[in-house]
């Protein structure tokens, strides 16, 4: 019964979001696209953080390489977007396999520092490899043609692009959700709580951490691959360490203990940023105050706090 209600709410939410272009101001199509992409990016991060218990500060590397892969493929080969996105995921997966191979050997703060270091290295490579990446200007000037798979989508129309993003993000999120509920996901949660006990149950913890890291990198690559065409450019900002901080902040804002927490956090983050920056330049000050309040008083995030409150009222 409860599951049916939740499914119904989510279905209604999907319908409302899908038809958003028909009733919301044009501007909010862009806001909504950004929320969806940052939400997927943050949710992929939360597979490592919330579910496996490792705080990564280098997640933008996978988002960025996905974005650059998409931009370069669209610019030089004019591939259909579907294949571009698959290769963006592959790029994120491969980079995560390499970086993860080193990082999952470490625990706690050392893991965080090493992911940060690899994130910075990735940024430096992207920034300096001018012949390929065009340096600080980034890769732009590519055109979106067809989607592929025989679908006739006018991707140049932001409303159509938004609806495509929505469908892809929903499908990707369903896959991520299934992973978190699977036997593999159960072991990840057990590892996040007590890695040593899991090892004494016969599990090679390092291998599971690496797999979690690679899956997260793959989905971050997808988010980046969708973000670059949306933003009309793949530039070094996508790989910068401040970009790595975004999914961390969004996840804490929304609630790391819930699958939908990061999406919720991304929505609050992007909306607040949009509204506050129309009144003042001091968005970071507001963000800082909000985060401080969250961390001190509402550790379970906004979504977590709301759900706890609803459950207690029942």
């Amino acid at each position, binding site marked *: 019964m409860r599951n049916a209600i939740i499914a119904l709410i989510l279905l209604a939410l999907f319908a409302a979001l899908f038809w958003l272009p028909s009733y919301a101001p044009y501007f909010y199509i862009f806001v909504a696209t950004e929320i969806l992409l940052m939400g997927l990016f943050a949710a992929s991060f939360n597979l490592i953080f919330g579910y496996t218990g490792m705080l990564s500060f280098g997640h933008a590397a996978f988002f960025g390489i996905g974005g650059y892969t998409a931009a370069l493929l669209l610019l030089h080969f004019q591939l259909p977007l579907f294949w571009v996105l698959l290769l963006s995921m592959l790029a994120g997966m491969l980079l995560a396999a390499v970086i993860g191979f080193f990082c999952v050997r470490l625990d706690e703060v050392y893991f965080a520092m090493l992911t940060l270091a690899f994130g910075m290295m990735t940024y430096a490579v992207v920034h300096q490899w001018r012949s390929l990446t065009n340096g600080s200007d980034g890769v732009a000037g590519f055109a979106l043609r067809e989607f592929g798979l025989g679908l006739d989508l006018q991707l140049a129309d932001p409303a159509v692009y938004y609806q495509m993003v929505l469908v892809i993000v929903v499908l990707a999120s369903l*896959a991520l959700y*299934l*992973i978190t*509920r*699977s*036997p*593999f*996901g*159960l*072991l990840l*949660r*057990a590892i996040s*709580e*007590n890695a*040593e*006990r*899991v*090892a*004494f*149950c*016969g*599990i*090679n*913890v390092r291998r*599971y951490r690496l*797999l979690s890291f690679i899956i997260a990198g793959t989905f971050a690559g997808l988010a980046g691959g969708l973000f670059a065409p949306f933003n009309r450019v793949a530039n070094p900002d996508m790989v910068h360490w401040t970009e790595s901080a975004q999914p961390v902040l969004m996840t804490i804002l929304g609630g790391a203990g819930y699958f939908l927490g990061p999406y919720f956090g991304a929505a609050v983050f992007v909306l607040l940023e949009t509204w506050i920056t129309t009144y003042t330049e001091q968005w970071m000050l507001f963000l800082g105050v909000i985060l401080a309040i969250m961390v001190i008083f509402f550790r379970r995030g906004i979504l977590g706090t709301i759900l706890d409150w609803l459950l207690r009222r029942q």
Partner: protein
Amino acid sequence: MNEPILSVRGLSKSFGGVHAVQNVSLDVWPREKVALIGPNGAGKTTFYNMLSGRLRPSDGSVSFEGQDITGLPPHRISRLGISRSFQITNIFSELSVRQNVEVALTALHGKGLQMFRIASRDRALREEAEQILAQLGLAELADLRAGVLSYGDKRLLEIAIVLATRPRLVLLDEPTAGMTPEETRQVTRLIRELAASNTYTFLITEHDMSVVFDLADRIVVMHRGQLLAEGSPEEIRNNKAVREAYLGEEEEP
């Protein structure tokens, strides 16, 4: 009983200059219940940590069912058939009681890499977990979050996780520590029942001498990192060196 299930030769561990365990040799035979006793700091836990892969020995060797396992990581040793409990309760507090057992069963059945099916819909896993919980009298608590269990139930859940890995050699590190007398009797009875099933071999450290003399087929005494004595409960009870080193500090068993 022709081959020992566990064979330890000259096992040593030193931290800096301190010899926590020194040149310990021990054979454990299949289906035996061996109690390892000794005063605090005798090196029992260090010894356990070397058997289970938590610590790498400085010297010596351990073999299990004829296979050399010296210095293998914990997950390899667990898969070979040695499972241990911990002196300090070591469970997954945020998971449900059933999930605690399912984690071990998932590992045992090699289901850990299944990513595209819902874990809670795995009937076989669920039934097996419930069967183990029933064996420990925890069946009614299966859906509770493990963190809310009473201390004694947490200790039982710890044993449930150990059994779920289907070990042939079970290392119990003070299974009754901190338990009420009633809970202690329950655990003692449980160990005896498990032993009667003839599938397990037990190595147990224990402070409660009544449990030790009640359960053990054989008692091994450690003192200052070395083996002090070894024998039947009767022999140990009458061993003068043991009495001086250890039992003298306790009440009469």
